[in-house]
């Protein structure tokens, strides 16, 4: 054989191999749904890790709570068909009858007691143990009635009971929570190919009649945004849940094969500052930095204009949200004046530590660098890996400024904690927050939340830049996906292919 012919043969074989079978191997039609998620869950146990990657697969789909946060952010009865409290201190939950775990056994009040007691036990290392430690006593009145007494009133207790860490599971299956969790949800974990996918199948005994619509859901772990786009376009996946960047939205909207959902989230992207360190300990400097930032430009430059501008640390999905976005407006002249007053007429140098694992942090940082430079604040971006960010910035508060999205709903509580990495210590705020926690009356509580938000805007312990938008792309014909994301779960119980 001559050499050119040898090369030609290899090429031909390659072409033949590629031409081989026709359609992609993963079928994605009918009552099956293939969903892209960017990260593989680090185990499936919601009671040991608060990772959103676990919540996306397990919470609402496999395991459920007594109370549910619905798609509008409202707390609705779920495994508890109703509850009763007059003082936000003593709660009685009446369980829905006939709810069966995936192993066939009926859920009873004793299961709820077991779950809560286990969460309170330090040995189980529940990430939100503090929330459950408020419980003083648990009394099982009968199989379907359970009463809890808290040590002091807590207005947010129902929210704690609705969080992903409060899922109800059968006590006999506690050892398999990490690999094959059992629950009461619309789907059952049927297969987990480590590194590739998790497959859920329909729970035929689901306690909500007529649901779910899908027979089978496959979660595929695709970390890269470009690969996600290619997978969507080639038909390998039906839904991209969290993997697309704002730059893909226009292109996908123009493509008739797809629909794009742009909604709200609880994810507040924040320029955090180290309030325990000079010059950020000076309120005038913090306000100057806020005045120096044109948030409209930030949103355009970093997020293609998608998302909403914030002015305080309550997200638009929160019922107590007050629009504070105009409270400290863009005003470079005022920024310079404030800096001069604080003793920095020539500005100062700062390091902005960000973790590129979250794409928006670097993009946002780059816009901020040029804006802050105009006010005389010379910022250098330092990119560090997520693990280092958690150690250096979050744990040790060894930083000047940072950018990160805070996705936890109701996380205004962080400002009442002087040890949080903002290192902001304000007794008046703490007092107000504490009052809001023990205030039962909704109107009064709303008033307190308005005060808290205004106080944050006035004191500027951080700069609240924008709410990260929810960006979901699906094939045409898929219905039932939440528009907004008041809780970082991916409820697929009502998702269906349009007939």
């Amino acid at each position, binding site marked *: 054989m*001559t*050499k*050119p012919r040898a*090369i030609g043969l*290899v090429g031909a074989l*390659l072409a033949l*191999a*590629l*031409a*081989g*079978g*026709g*359609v*992609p*191997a*993963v079928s994605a039609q009918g009552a099956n749904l293939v969903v892209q998620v960017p990260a*593989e869950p*680090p*185990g499936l146990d919601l009671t*040991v*890790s*608060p*990772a959103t990657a676990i919540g996306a697969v397990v919470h609402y789909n496999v395991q459920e709570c007594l109370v549910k946060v619905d798609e509008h952010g409202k707390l609705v009865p779920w495994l508890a068909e109703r509850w009763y409290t007059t003082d936000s201190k003593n709660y009685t939950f009446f369980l829905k009858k006939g709810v069966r775990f995936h192993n066939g056994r009926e859920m009873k009040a004793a299961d709820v007691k077991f779950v809560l007691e286990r969460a309170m036990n*330090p040995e189980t*290392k*529940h*990430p*939100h*143990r*503090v929330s459950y430690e408020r419980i003083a006593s648990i009394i099982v009145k009968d199989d379907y009635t359970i009463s809890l007494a808290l040590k002091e009133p807590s207005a947010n207790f129902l929210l704690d009971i609705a969080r992903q860490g409060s899922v109800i599971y059968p006590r006999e299956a506690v050892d398999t929570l*990490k*690999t094959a969790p059992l629950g009461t949800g619309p789907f059952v974990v049927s297969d987990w*190919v*480590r*590194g*590739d*996918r998790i497959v859920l199948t329909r729970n035929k005994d689901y306690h909500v009649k007529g649901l779910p619509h899908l027979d089978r859901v496959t979660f*595929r*772990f*695709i*970390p*890269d945004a*470009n*690969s996600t786009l*290619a*997978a969507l*376009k*080639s038909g*390998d996946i039906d839904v991209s849940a969290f993997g697309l960047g704002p730059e893909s939205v226009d292109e996908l909207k123009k493509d008739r094969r797809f629909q794009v959902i742009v909604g709200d989230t609880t994810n507040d992207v924040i320029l955090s500052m180290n309030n325990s360190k000079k010059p950020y300990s000076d309120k005038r400097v913090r306000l100057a930095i806020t005045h120096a930032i044109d948030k409209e430009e930030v949103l355009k430059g970093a997020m293609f204009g998608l998302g909403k501008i914030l002015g305080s640390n309550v997200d638009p999905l929160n019922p107590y949200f007050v629009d504070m976005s105009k409270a400290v407006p863009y005003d470079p002249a005022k920024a310079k004046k404030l800096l001069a007053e604080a003793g920095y007429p020539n500005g100062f140098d700062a390091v902005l530590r960000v973790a590129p*694992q979250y794409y928006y942090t670097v993009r946002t940082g780059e816009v901020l660098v040029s804006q802050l430079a105009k006010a005389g604040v010379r910022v250098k971006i330092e990119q560090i*890996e*997520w*693990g*280092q960010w*958690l*150690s*250096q910035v*979050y*744990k040790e508060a060894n930083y000047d400024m940072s950018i990160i999205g805070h996705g*936890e709903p109701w996380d205004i509580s962080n400002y009442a904690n002087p040890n949080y990495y903002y290192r902001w210590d304000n007794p008046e705020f703490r007092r107000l927050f504490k009052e809001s926690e023990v205030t039962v009356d909704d109107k009064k509580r709303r008033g307190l939340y308005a005060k808290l938000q205004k106080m944050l805007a006035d004191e500027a312990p951080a700069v609240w830049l924008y709410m990260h938008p929810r960006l979901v792309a699906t094939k045409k014909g898929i219905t039932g996906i939440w528009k907004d994301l008041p809780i970082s779960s991916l409820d697929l119980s009502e998702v269906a292919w349009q007939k």
Partner: protein
Amino acid sequence: MAALVVTLFFVSVLVFVVIRVLPGDAALIILGTEGSPEAAALLRRAMGLDRPFAVQYLEWIARAVAGDLGRSIQYDVPVASLILSRMSVTLPLTLLAAGLMVATAIPLGVFAATRHRRWGDYLAMILSQLGVAVPGFWAGLLLVLLFSVRLGWVQAGGFDGWGQGVWPALRSLLLPAAALGFFQFAVLARTTRSAVLEVLREEFVKTARAKGLAEGAVLFRHALRNAMIPVITVAGIQLGQLMAGSIVLETVFYLPGLGRLAIGAISARDLPVVQGVVLFVASMIVLINVAVDVLYGFLDPRIRYE
């Protein structure tokens, strides 16, 4: 053999120290921004990370020698079984990439050498220059755009497992293998070309031609075989690099291979998995080097090992 053990010992110490010196705390990463410092401290103790380094190392290495690499923190399954299951993707991917690389690079290199300073040579070298210049992940994305998005011949990524049959499994590895092999192909083609060129200038080639041998026989029986030593050396090194390159391409093609296992484990500080994977890959590379050394002996009978 002794060298092998010493190498692996140093690798094991290095990986153990490096992963622990890195800033970043496994417990903090597991708990994320919602975890309290108290919960992190409890978790650290439960994972045994509060004990002295030396104790942790000795315990780990003693078990590793017996074949027990520990349990993954995030998956709660034995590390060895994780590595084995991921090798069912990475090994065929690497071998396929190596096969494609050798099957294209060596003929192209020989072709270029025989067309020295003519159009064929220039064309072949431009092609291989392209291979050196285009990064694997980019080549991978371009291949996906053409073969998956435009033509719909193969899936854009993922791996459905060998249970679906050999052909579907191989097919889902073709694009990543091509992208992975492309860069290394370019290097190997250039090595082959220069090695063959050098041999073609030797006296014994002139003699072979003078005694009237056909050009094909001169090329394959005399020139190529003698040019093989540097080619095999480079190919051996490349096999190791292919394994390393698979880390990037497994991410682009979202394949559940060893590379992605390593990346995920590093960012999650899943220490037993990181240690296990690095030790395993290091052993593989040491073994490849041994195999290359043995191959020398077959190619050149003058090379013998005591």
